[in-house]
Each structure stands twice: as structure tokens, then as C-alpha cells.
């Protein structure tokens, strides 16, 4: 083995224990995130049982509720043995194996009752925790003294996963109205995962480095260009813990948990994570960037996993919102456009054997959230791609809808020939809630028949035309071009693309972007 230079070791240890900038955030941040995300207590179906069993066995009722939440989300489960040596779990408290037998005995119920009956199950779990606490000599009035007891109850050997489990119980404790503190107490036990403080591209993430990555190509094919949305087909802890295991031979850059309370970063964005097997095929992606065909899709993408299943009927709003904030961060840092060609589902690019994130991922609303996090509103030429609360469009029927030239925003674009007397402009309207400065951009698709001087009129909610800006639509298709920056009043302001000009060219109405 190579010898570590001594100073590096010293820095690492110092960083782990209370440096001003937290470079080793995993368990501590997990605890903090849990506290911040769960300030509002909510009743469980078993509150009275937790209270009674807690009093009987000298275990804080909120802690019982926390364990129940972490294990089963307060549901009665009937387990099946899933792995040799890992007995099936039962009841609200997911009691299993020897712990179930012991708890049942201590609580004076049969093992069968402890499996099937919620009260017996919770009492048996409380009795086991009581016994563990006595054996550990825990000072029961202090929540952090319970960390080792709860860790033993969870039967998890890997320190990082143990800390994550305690973070989950903490969250359950907070939901039950208690004061969490288990994960914070365990922070010192967990190894500092990485001395590389520059690893985190998304500062709010917990750094859980995966060995499953390699280098992106150094030529144009390796430039970061797309975000791929996945679902794990499992829960959060099961997802990231598998993807940091070298045996899995798979990874993602990020994993977002079910509640939007936590994001893990497993691979640096500059590195090539292993989340999508498909070679790129532009026919699966609105014929965008066909020059990338047959490039391995990991080469140029950032992969984001979401705890959950492609078969879900819906996704939690908080998870979608956290994911959208993350995607805003990635796309802003990497200069990736926020549209449906650049933020894409795994199943879309790999239809042969993947469907994730599934038919119920709310693609349009999700993109609107991403855009909102990045302070932009986009008005498309088709209403279905607009957030009607802030963006509406009016395109007269004299304009033709098509998707012939790729790299449009939304599902296509409209075009119309220029005419000297035309008055039927395409109008993109957007709501400004408080008067202020806005930068407006336009997007079109290019072609030799396009107008070299397509005119965009900027019109306030009061009907005042602030400017008319001419652009050359023969070039620059598929990307945003600034029209200018204006101070706009509150209300529905608008940008009108005019047809009126000498005949012989076409103007393309695709989309308008409003930036704060």
C-alpha cells in the first residue's frame, strides 16, 4: 500500500470534527435535513399504543413512533423471508427473528400475537428496546443516548447505512412531535467518507461516493449535455446503498429520496456515472443532436435516481420539487437548456427494456418547476406546454404547426409566410406579478427560407410597445437569443412575432423566455 502523506491525514481528521465548513456532511446533514423537513407533527394511527407501551416499558413514545415510521411508515406488515439469514419482519415495528421472540416473551404475548396484533407488536418492540437500553446502560431521558439501542434494533452493520437509518427514525420522532437527535449523536461514529470537499456539485447533497464510475470522453461527445430521470424501483436507502456497492456495477450522479428531504450525490458530475446502457438514438428524442447517434449515453448525461417505482400512480410533490431544484442547479451550472430534449426519461432513451420514471411522471409540470427554480418562465407556441397561470399563447390559424426542423421548444413550432399587410401576429403572453426588470429571449428553428429580419414587438400590460427587435432566423435555431432587457409593469405583458414584411420568407414562432 502507498503511504498517505501525513498532512493529508491530519486535514481529514480535523475536517471530520467540527471544521467551520462542514466537509463531511452525511449523518449530520441527514439529521438536520430530517429536522428541517419535518417540523409539523402529524398523528399516527397508533399514537395511543405508542404512549401506553412507552409508559409501560420506559421508552419515549415518540421514539417508538419514530422506529415505527422508519420501519413501516406506520403500517402493519406481514413479512416474507427475503434472504437467507434475514428473517421476515412483522407488524408496525418490523420485528423479526430473535428480537421478536425475545420481545414477545418479555411482553407476555405469544410470538404469533406479536406478529399479527398491532398492540402486541408495539409492546413487544418496546420491551426489546427496554432490554437493549438496560444492557447499554443508556440514560433514557436523553435522546442521543438511544442511538446505539436503535442501531442495534435496526440490525444494520454498515456505518453509513446505520446513520441513515437513525436519520429516518429521527424524522419519525419529529413527525410524532418529539425532539430528534439520534443521527446527530452518531455522527462521530461514521467515517468521514471523502476528503475531497470539491466533490459536491450540489452543495445540499450528502456525499456518498460510489466506486462505479469512469471518465467521460475528452472530445465533444463527452461534454455534459442532458439530464436523465430515473426511478430506483426501490426505497431510498436501498437505492443509494446498492449503487455505492462496487458489486452493483451501476450508479447515478444523484439519488433523491421519497420526501424530498434528502439528496445523495454518488458520482461527481464531471465523471461518467453508470446509469443508462443505451446508445443514443436521436429518433427517440425529437431528432435532437443526431450527430450523437451510437454514442454511449452515459458519456454526456447526468443521471438522477428517484426513490420509488415507475409503476407509481403519482409522485410526492415534495420529491418532485426537490428534484426540480436539483435539476435547476445542474442545468444552470452546465449550461444545459431546460426543455424536453435535455431533461429526459431513462425509458424514453432505452425503450427496449426500461420504462422509468414511468407514465405518471408529470413531465410538463416538472419542467415548469425546474424553470421556476431557475427564475424563468417559458411561453411555447402550444398551450399544452405552458403553465397557464403565468404563460398563454395566441397563434392565429394562418400559422402552420409543424415539427419538421428539430430543436424546437415543446412539441413543435408554427410558421407563416411574410406578407406586407399581415396583422395576425403570434402573441406570447406572460404574467409579471411585481413590476421589475426582465430579460426576454426568443427561440426559433433555422432554415434558408427563414426571414433575416423577423420582428418581435415587446408590449406591456398597459399596451405600450417598448421595442421592436429584428432577428435573423436563418441562423441560431434551437437555442435562446436575447431580445433585450426591459422594466415591465405588473400584469400580462407580451411579445408579438410579426408577419408583416416583404413577401418571400417565413417567420418561425417557437417560444419566448422571460428571465428575472
Amino acid at each position, binding site marked *: 500500500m502507498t503511504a498517505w502523506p501525513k498532512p493529508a491525514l491530519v486535514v481529514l481528521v480535523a475536517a471530520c470534527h467540527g471544521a467551520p465548513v462542514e466537509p463531511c456532511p452525511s449523518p449530520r446533514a441527514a439529521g438536520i435535513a430530517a429536522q428541517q423537513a419535518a417540523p409539523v407533527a402529524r398523528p399516527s394511527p397508533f399514537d395511543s399504543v405508542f404512549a401506553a407501551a412507552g409508559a409501560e416499558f420506559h421508552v419515549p413514545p415518540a421514539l417508538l413512533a419514530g422506529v415505527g415510521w422508519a420501519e413501516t411508515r406506520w403500517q402493519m406488515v406481514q413479512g*416474507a*423471508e*427475503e*434472504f*437467507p*439469514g*434475514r*428473517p421476515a419482519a412483522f407488524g408496525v415495528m418490523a420485528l423479526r*427473528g*430473535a428480537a*421478536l*421472540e425475545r420481545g414477545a416473551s418479555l411482553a407476555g404475548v405469544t*410470538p404469533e400475537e406479536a406478529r399479527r396484533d398491532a398492540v402486541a407488536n408495539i409492546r413487544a418492540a418496546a420491551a426489546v428496546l427496554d432490554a437493549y437500553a438496560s444492557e447499554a446502560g443508556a440514560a433514557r431521558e436523553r435522546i442521543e443516548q438511544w442511538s446505539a439501542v436503535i442501531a442495534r434494533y435496526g*440490525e*444494520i*452493520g*454498515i456505518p453509513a*447505512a446505520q446513520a441513515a437509518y437513525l436519520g429516518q427514525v429521527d424524522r419519525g420522532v419529529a413527525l410524532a412531535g418529539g425532539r430528534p437527535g439520534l443521527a446527530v449523536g452518531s455522527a462521530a461514529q461514521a467515517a468521514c467518507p471523502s476528503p475531497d470537499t470539491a466533490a459536491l456539485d450540489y452543495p445540499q447533497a450528502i456525499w456518498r461516493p460510489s466506486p*462505479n464510475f*469512469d471518465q467521460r470522453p475528452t472530445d465533444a461527445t463527452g461534454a455534459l449535455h442532458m439530464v436523465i430521470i*430515473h*426511478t*430506483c*424501483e*426501490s*426505497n431510498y*436507502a*436501498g437505492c443509494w*446503498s*446498492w449503487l*455505492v*456497492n*462496487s*458489486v*452493483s*456495477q*451501476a*450508479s447515478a450522479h444523484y439519488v433523491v429520496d421519497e420526501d424530498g428531504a434528502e439528496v445523495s450525490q454518488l458520482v461527481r458530475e464531471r465523471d461518467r456515472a*453508470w*446509469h*443508462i*446502457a*443505451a*446508445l443514443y438514438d436521436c429518433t427517440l428524442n425529437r431528432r435532437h443532436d443526431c450527430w450523437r447517434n451510437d454514442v*454511449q*449515453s*452515459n458519456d454526456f448525461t447526468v443521471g438522477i*435516481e428517484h426513490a*420509488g*417505482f*415507475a*409503476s*407509481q*400512480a403519482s409522485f410526492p410533490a415534495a420529491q418532485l420539487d426537490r428534484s426540480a431544484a436539483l435539476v435547476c442547479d445542474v442545468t444552470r451550472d452546465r449550461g444545459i437548456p431546460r426543455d424536453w430534449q435535455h431533461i429526459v426519461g*431513462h425509458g424514453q432513451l432505452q425503450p427496449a*427494456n*426500461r420504462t*422509468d420514471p414511468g407514465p405518471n411522471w408529470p413531465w410538463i409540470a416538472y419542467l415548469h418547476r425546474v424553470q421556476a427554480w431557475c427564475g424563468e418562465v417559458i411561453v411555447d407556441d402550444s398551450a399544452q406546454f405552458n403553465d397557464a397561470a403565468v404563460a398563454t399563447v395566441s397563434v392565429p390559424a394562418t400559422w402552420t404547426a409543424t415539427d419538421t426542423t428539430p430543436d424546437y421548444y415543446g412539441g413543435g413550432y408554427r410558421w407563416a409566410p411574410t406578407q406586407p399587410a399581415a396583422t395576425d401576429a403570434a402573441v406570447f403572453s406572460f404574467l409579471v406579478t411585481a413590476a421589475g426588470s426582465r430579460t426576454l429571449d426568443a427561440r426559433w428553428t433555422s432554415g434558408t427560407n427563414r426571414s433575416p429580419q423577423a420582428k418581435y414587438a415587446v408590449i406591456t400590460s398597459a399596451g405600450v410597445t417598448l421595442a421592436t427587435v429584428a432577428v435573423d432566423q436563418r441562423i441560431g435555431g434551437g437555442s435562446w437569443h436575447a431580445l433585450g432587457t426591459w422594466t415591465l409593469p405588473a400584469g400580462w405583458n407580451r411579445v408579438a412575432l410579426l408577419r408583416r414584411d416583404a413577401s418571400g420568407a417565413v417567420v418561425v414562432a417557437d417560444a419566448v423566455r422571460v428571465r428575472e
Partner: protein
Amino acid sequence: MTPRVVRPGILVVSTLIACHRDQPRQADPSGAALSLAAAPQDTAFPGTTAPIHRARPIRPGVPPALLRAVETSSGPGYDRVVFEFASDSVPGYHVAYMTAPVRRCGSGNPVALAGAGRLVVRFEPARAHDERGNPSPAERERATGLPALKDIKLVCDFEGQVEWALGVAAAAPYRVSETTAPARLVVDIRRRP
């Protein structure tokens, strides 16, 4: 509760040891006995070289079926792979010969296999690791060296799909059969006469 109860810490350690084993293990004779009991004897089945597909419903919140064991063996006129699951029944599966290179589902990197044919067996919803991240089975590839079945490699254990690539001597006819209790999928590859 049962004699098989193992403390998870110990389980992790033993798994890690298993992971670091560099040499693929040969087929276990007891595994051969196990798999031969799972399907009727047949020395000259017609089989097929076409894909065989069987979908199962995927329900959210229900954990994917856990692969418990993979055994390879040699029968009269064919070589056999048995995939055994810890669930009540076999998950959905898709079996097909591939002409394109086999790729790992995460990295997309090509996987080299012995033999001239590549038979891919994909399960869904399934996983080959438990919720604690322990691989199951720990052995992820095996050079069998059998007449028809040259080697097998796990090429995917990601997002609810488990995929094994079978390197076979030639793209010969194969058949599949299912059993329950235990839940097994048996794949037989016919030998060249």
C-alpha cells in the same frame, strides 16, 4: 427462530469475502442434483431459438423478487441453468438470443462471453441483492466450461431488473420451464449431437 439466523454484521463480512473471490467457482454437484429434480428429463426436446417473453404485473411498493441462487449443470443432451428466487413465484422474464454485443445495464460497457452464441435472460421486477446491499448470490459470474453452456455473467442488477448473459457454444434451441415452491426458472440449452 431458525438455525439460519445470522447476525447481519457477520453476513456482511462473509459477503465481502465472497465478493473478493477472484476465481469463478465450478458448478456445485449438489446444485446439479437440485436442478435436475426441478424439471422432467428430456434428451431430445425441440426447443426454440426465438425469444420467450412472460410479463408479470409490477406493483409499486412490492419489493422485486430476490434471486437466491443460480446453479449450472449438465443433463442428458442439454446444459441447464436454474435461477431460484426467494419469492412465491418467478418474476416476469424475457429470454432471447442477441446478435448485438451484450452490455452492462449501468455502464453500457460491452461484456465478453465465451462461445459463439449469447443467450440473455432478463427478470423483472427482480433484484440480486437484499435491502442491505448484500449481493445475492455473491457469485456474479461463472465459467462453467460445459459442452453447450460456456459461461454465465450477471450483467444487470439495477432498477428492478436482473439480467444474466449466457455464453453458449452455438445459438442452439433452448427451452424454459417454471416451478413454484421453490420459485425457479429452468433454462435448458440443447447440445450439438
